[in-house]
């Protein structure tokens, strides 16, 4: 049934549709209404789950890990500093191969204090061994939670996933969302049935010490699992489309890229605004496209190489910055394209930090700039969009 709801409610409805069994959570702005809605579902009996109010995000993830080891489907949600506090236990969840699914309402890190949209919190956790899915709409948030459980719980994968919705821009925007039929979700996503779990009467050790002669093999197997997840994400999405009629473009969602001269790479809600700009510029005869990073982990390595074979210029919009380097999306895409036969001109644009609005005008200017770069060549210096009152770098 289609109804108007916020991104946070879409997260809660997604966890409910997936029949999460254990939900340990700690509230934080702007994630709070996810936790409130799930607590309500549990208290009314609409969702048969154990809701665990914990005293910190570190404990929330620790409880997810424990419940997941016992064979329960677990869900939690957090944001920014809450995610950072989980960092240690995020490694635990992926290292122990536990298919925990979590929403991160992506928000700026402090100081200076900010509660608004920014990808720094999510990007800072890229190395924790979690899959990361950036969402463009509330519908995608709900659908991706359902798909993520199916991917994560696949026997050959067994890794956790983070569903990323932009603070306020999705979390507090109300828009129409189709809540899928529960019977259809149940047959698409069977209950969690792990190969191994901790049971009373069947003692096992989890997370024990391994010696140097064994540790690398565990990491190697995680690497293989994440590699396999690439194909699994695509096959699960194909199946999802057959049942529910919706799909989101796999790991890298291309819009009007096939005949494009230049492409803008971006992730999250800004992609919606970028689509309107692509349409407008196309109407003026400009051959521009959008490539939306849907999965940052696993990284869409082949997809970017395929994109590079089509376009002469790639503009990369990062909503975060890795100090001492550049935007994380940019450096990773550059790395992926080092040995392609025809390297497109590239430039990194830093925009929208701490919730600053990324308007159609900003995106249009990026397109105009990258079109110039196609002739002048790559610009190694990231451009910080519309920074006011500070000396600008001379290019």
């Amino acid at each position: 049934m289609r109804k108007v709801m916020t991104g946070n409610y879409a997260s809660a409805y997604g966890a409910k549709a997936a029949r999460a069994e254990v939900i340990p959570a700690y509230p934080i702005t702007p994630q709070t209404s996810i936790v409130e809605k799930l607590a309500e579902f549990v208290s009314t009996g609409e969702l048969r789950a154990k809701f665990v109010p914990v005293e910190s995000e570190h404990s929330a993830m620790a409880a997810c890990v424990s419940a997941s080891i016992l064979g329960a489907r677990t869900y939690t949600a957090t944001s920014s500093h809450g995610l950072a506090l989980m960092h240690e236990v995020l490694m635990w969840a992926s290292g122990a191969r536990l298919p925990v699914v979590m929403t991160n309402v992506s928000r700026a890190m402090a100081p200076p204090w900010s509660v608004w949209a920014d990808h720094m919190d999510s990007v800072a956790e890229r190395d924790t061994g979690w899959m990361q899915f950036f969402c463009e709409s509330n519908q995608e948030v709900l659908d991706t939670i359902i798909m993520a459980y199916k991917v994560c719980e696949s026997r050959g994968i067994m890794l956790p996933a983070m569903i990323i919705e932009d603070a306020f821009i999705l979390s507090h925007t109300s828009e129409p969302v189709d809540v899928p039929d529960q019977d259809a979700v149940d047959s698409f996503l069977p209950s969690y049935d792990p190969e191994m779990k901790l049971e009373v009467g069947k003692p096992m050790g989890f997370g024990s010490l391994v010696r140097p002669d064994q540790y690398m093999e565990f990491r190697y197997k995680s690497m293989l699992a994440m590699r396999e997840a690439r194909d699994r994400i695509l096959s699960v999405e194909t199946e999802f489309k057959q049942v529910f009629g919706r799909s989101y473009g796999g790991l890298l969602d291309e819009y009007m890229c096939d005949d494009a001269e230049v492409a803008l790479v971006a992730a999250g809600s800004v992609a919606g605004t970028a689509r309107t700009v692509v349409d407008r510029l196309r109407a003026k005869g400009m051959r521009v496209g959008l490539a939306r990073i849907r999965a940052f982990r696993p990284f869409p390595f082949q997809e970017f190489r395929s994109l590079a074979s089509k376009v002469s210029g790639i503009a990369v919009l990062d909503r975060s910055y890795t100090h001492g380097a550049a935007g994380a999306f940019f450096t990773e895409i550059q790395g992926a394209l080092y040995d392609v036969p025809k390297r497109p001109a590239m430039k990194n644009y830093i925009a929208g930090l701490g919730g600053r609005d990324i308007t159609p005008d900003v995106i249009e200017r990026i397109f105009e700039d990258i079109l110039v770069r196609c002739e002048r060549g790559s610009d190694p210096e990231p451009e910080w969009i519309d920074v006011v009152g500070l000396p600008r770098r001379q290019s």
Partner: protein
Amino acid sequence: MIEVRFHGRGGQGVVVASEILANAAFNMGFEVASFPFFGVERRGAPVTAFTRIDTSPIRIRSSIYEPDYVVVLDSSLLKGVDVLEGLKRGGTVFINYPDGRRLPSLPGGFKYFTLDATSIAAAHGIGSKVTPIVNTAIMGGFSRICDDVSLEAMLESILGKAPVKKEENVAAAREAYERTREVSI
């Protein structure tokens, strides 16, 4: 696309007003998006919220800078906040304003409507006498001004959104619809 900006104060139901409008338009078959400029606002602080209404799915995620309508839930904001900022030429301003008092001087080129939503909300016992919650009355009045959203759709939306006193909120919206009037500047 129709774009609406709401101005009010924390506690008046500004964000819910934007959601009531979105739901009403959705009930009529439109695509919608409503969103607050949400910070860490507290009761009494100026709050802004927005609603977009269109016939095709809404993809744009940036804020509204040139609204077609501005709805002011608290007339004290007319001083201190530029509620007309970016309003399209010929656009509409709808202000919660006490009956029998003249509006302060406001620029021409726009259509102005007023409604004494505070009195109506208080009379129907919505919120407290000192701080009535005016959003449902305001939205009843808005359906009088905006041709695309009917009073029936607005009432249905209010029924769905009001957590308590559903009938009182609907009655307030009905009365507001009748009492909304255009004023000349």
